[in-house]
C-alpha cells in the first residue's frame, strides 16, 4: 500500500510544467485563441517533442505506454496552463480508444505511431457531449453510430462551429453519414471502448479542473498580496484569507480523489465509475469555488477581460459540465452508494475488503 507518486513521475510532471510555463504563457494563449482555428501547430509540435502526445501510446508503437495515473498529473498541468481540448482528447482519450481496438483494425498501429510522433489530431464524438470539441481541425473524428465506432476523416464531415464563453473551446456540431468504410468497430466491440472513453474523458476533465483551481488560487494569492486598500495588502484581511484558505482546502482534498479514480480505472477496479464521478464532482467544486472566491478577492479587476483570471474562470465554467454534467455524475454516485451491498464504511477505500 503506497498512495504516492515516484520521484520520476513527479520529475516528469515538473518538466512539463516548466515547459508550459514558458510556451503557454497567458499572452501567447490569448493570441492563439483569437485565431480562427484557435490552435497553434507550433505549440502542438513542441508538446509532441516533450512526449506529451506519446504518453498513452504503447511502447511497441513508439510511445511511452503510460496509464491513467500518469495522466492524472499531466491533466492538472494542461488545466493549469489552459491547454485546449485537442491535446488530451487526442493523446489520452482517443489514443486509449484506438489502443483498445483489435489488431485486425488495419490502421490501428499506424495511427498510434502518428499520434506518438504528434502528426495526428483526433476528435472524439461521445454521446455524453452534445457537441464535439475540436472536430474543425481534426484529421478524423471518432463517432458513435448505434454503438459502433466510426473513424470519419475531416473531409467526410460537415462542421458547424458553436462559440463558447471559453475562448479556448472550439465546439462543433458534426454532420455525417455512417457507412461501412468508416466503421472500425461494431457495437459489441465498441461498447466497452465507448464506456472507457467516457471515464477517461471525465477523468481528463477532472484533472484539468483541479489544475485550473490551483492556477486561479495562485493568481489570487499574488493579487491580494500586492493589492492595497485601507493602507494594507488586502491579503491581510481575515475575510480574504478565509476565502482563499477554503479554496486551498478543496484542492488538497480533491487531489487524492482524482488519484484513486485514475488508479481504479487503470487497474480495472469494479468501482472505477463511482470513483471517477466522485473525482469529476470534487475537482469541479474546487475549481468552481476557486473561480468564485478568485473573482471576489480580485474585486472589479477580476471582472475585466484584461486580467488573466477570466481565462481560467471561463474554462472552468465550460469544463464543469463537460464529459458528464453534475447530474450525470451524481446519478452514477447515487446508483453506486445507495445500492444494496455498496462498498461503504471503513476498510472499503481501496476495494471491497
Amino acid at each position, binding site marked *: 500500500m503506497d498512495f504516492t507518486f515516484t520521484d520520476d513521475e513527479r520529475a516528469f510532471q515538473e518538466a512539463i510544467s516548466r515547459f508550459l510555463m514558458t510556451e503557454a504563457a497567458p499572452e501567447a494563449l490569448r493570441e492563439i485563441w483569437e485565431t480562427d482555428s484557435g490552435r497553434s501547430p507550433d505549440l502542438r509540435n513542441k508538446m509532441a517533442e516533450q512526449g506529451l502526445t506519446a504518453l498513452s501510446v504503447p511502447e511497441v508503437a513508439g510511445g511511452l505506454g503510460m496509464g491513467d495515473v500518469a495522466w492524472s498529473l499531466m491533466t492538472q498541468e494542461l488545466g493549469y496552463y489552459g491547454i485546449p481540448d485537442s491535446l488530451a482528447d487526442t493523446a489520452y482519450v482517443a489514443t486509449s480508444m484506438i489502443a483498445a481496438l483489435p489488431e485486425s483494425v488495419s490502421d490501428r498501429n499506424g495511427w498510434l505511431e502518428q499520434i506518438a510522433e504528434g502528426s495526428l489530431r483526433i476528435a472524439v464524438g461521445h454521446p455524453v457531449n452534445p457537441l464535439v470539441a475540436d472536430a474543425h481541425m481534426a484529421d478524423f473524428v471518432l463517432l458513435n453510430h448505434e454503438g459502433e465506432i466510426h473513424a470519419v476523416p475531416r473531409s467526410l464531415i460537415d462542421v458547424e462551429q458553436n462559440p463558447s464563453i471559453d475562448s479556448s473551446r472550439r465546439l462543433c456540431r458534426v454532420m455525417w453519414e455512417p457507412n461501412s468504410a468508416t466503421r472500425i468497430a461494431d457495437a459489441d466491440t465498441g461498447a466497452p471502448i465507448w464506456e472507457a472513453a467516457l471515464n477517461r474523458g471525465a477523468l481528463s476533465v477532472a484533472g484539468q479542473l483541479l489544475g485550473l483551481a490551483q492556477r486561479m488560487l495562485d493568481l489570487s494569492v499574488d493579487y491580494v498580496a500586492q493589492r492595497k*486598500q485601507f493602507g494594507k495588502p488586502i491579503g491581510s484581511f481575515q475575510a480574504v484569507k478565509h476565502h482563499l484558505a477554503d479554496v486551498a482546502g478543496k484542492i488538497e482534498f480533491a487531489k487524492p480523489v482524482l488519484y484513486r479514480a485514475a488508479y481504479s480505472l487503470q487497474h480495472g477496479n469494479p468501482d472505477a465509475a463511482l470513483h471517477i464521478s466522485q473525482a469529476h464532482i470534487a475537482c469541479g467544486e474546487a475549481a468552481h469555488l476557486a473561480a468564485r472566491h478568485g473573482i471576489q478577492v480580485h474585486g472589479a479587476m477580476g471582472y*475585466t477581460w*484584461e486580467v488573466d483570471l477570466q481565462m481560467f474562470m471561463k474554462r472552468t465554467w465550460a469544463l464543469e459540465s463537460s464529459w458528464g*454534467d453534475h*447530474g450525470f455524475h451524481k446519478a452514477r454516485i447515487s446508483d453506486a452508494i445507495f445500492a444494496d451491498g455498496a462498498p461503504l464504511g471503513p476498510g472499503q477505500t481501496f476495494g471491497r475488503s
Partner: protein
Amino acid sequence: MDLNYTPRQQAFRQEVRAWLKDNLPAQKLASYDTREGFEQHREWERKLFEARLSMVMWPEELGGRGCDLIEWLIFEEEYYGADAPMRVNQNGQLLLGPTLMEFGTEAQKKRFLPRMAASDDMWAQAWSEPNAGSDMAAISSKAIRDGDHYVINGQKTWSTRAIYADWAFGLFRSDADSKRHHGLSFLMVPLDAEGVTIRPIKALNGKDAFAEIFFDNVRVPVENRIGEEGSGWHVAMATAGFERGLLLRSPARFQQPVRKLIELYKANQATADRDPSIREAVMDVWAGAESYALSAYQSVGRLARGEKIGAESSINKIIWSELDLKIHETAMRILGARGELLSSAAQNEDDYGWLEGFLFAQAGPIYAGANEIQRNIIAERMLGLPKA
C-alpha cells in the same frame, strides 16, 4: 397592517401593464454595452418619458408622476414582469437624481433633471479610482478652484458605459491638502469637455461595459458643483442610502428570473433531479426572492412612517447579490453542457440569456461596496461590534 392595494394602486398597475403591452419593443434590444444597443435603449427611455413612465416617483413638473414608493414597486413589478428593457440611464436617474433633488439648486434641478428623465443627457458615475475602490475615501483626483471654475486633474475608473455617456458625476478633492473624507466636492462634468479622455475597459463578457476617465486640466464651472465646496462626502452619502440601494435593485428584478428559473427547471426536471441540489436551490431562490420583496414592502412602509433605515441597506446588498448569483448558478447547472454556449451559437437553447446574467451576477458581490465591507458595516453599525 393592510396588504391590499388601493383602487388607485390597482388602476396604476393596470395602466402600466396595458401601456407596456402596447409599447414593448417587438424584439429584444441589443446589449446596452454596445453603441448600437445604447442608442436603442435611449430611444426606449424617450418613449417611457413621453408616457411619463421613466421616473414615476419624480414630481410632475420634472417629468414624473409624483408616485410614492408603493406605486414605484408596482411599476417595477409590471416593468420587469413584462421583460422590458434594462434601464440604461439609471446611474443618472437613480444615483445622481436623488442627490440633485436633495442638494441641488432650483436652477440645477431645472437644468438637469428633466433631460435626465428623458435621457437627453446620459450619465456615468465617476466614483472609483485605481487606488480608491472599497476604500472610497482614498480619492486623489483633484478639482482646484480657479475663479469661477474648478480645474480637474486625475483619473477615475469603473465608470459604467462612460464611453457612450454625455455627463459624469463624482467626488473630487477640492482642497489639495485634505485627507480622507474631508475637502471633497461633488461635481458634474460634461464628457465632451476639453481635457477629458475616456478609455474603455473590456469586461468579462468582452464588451466595453466600463471606462477609465482621465482628466487633464479640465475646466468645470462652479455652478456644476452640488452642495458646498468641501462637503462632497456628506452630499454623496447623505441621500437616502437605503432608498437608493432599493431603487437600484427592486425585488421584481429577481422575482422575474426566479419565475423563469422555475419554468426552466420544470422543462428539464428529469435531468435536473439527478442532482438534488438543483431542486433545493430552486426552492431556496424562490424563497429568497419572495423575502426580498416582502422586506422591500416592509421597508417602504417604515419609510412612509418616517422611520430611518440604516445598516439594513448593507443586508439588502448582500442578499440580492448572493441571490442573483445563486439564481444564475442554478440555471447554469440545469443547462448543463449547453450552458457555455454564447447566444450566437446555433445549438444554444437558452433564449433567456442565462449565461450573460451569470457573468453579470459575478460582479454583484463586488461592486457598490464589496460584501465583505457590507458585513463589517452590519457588525459594527447594527450590532455595535468594535472596529478592528
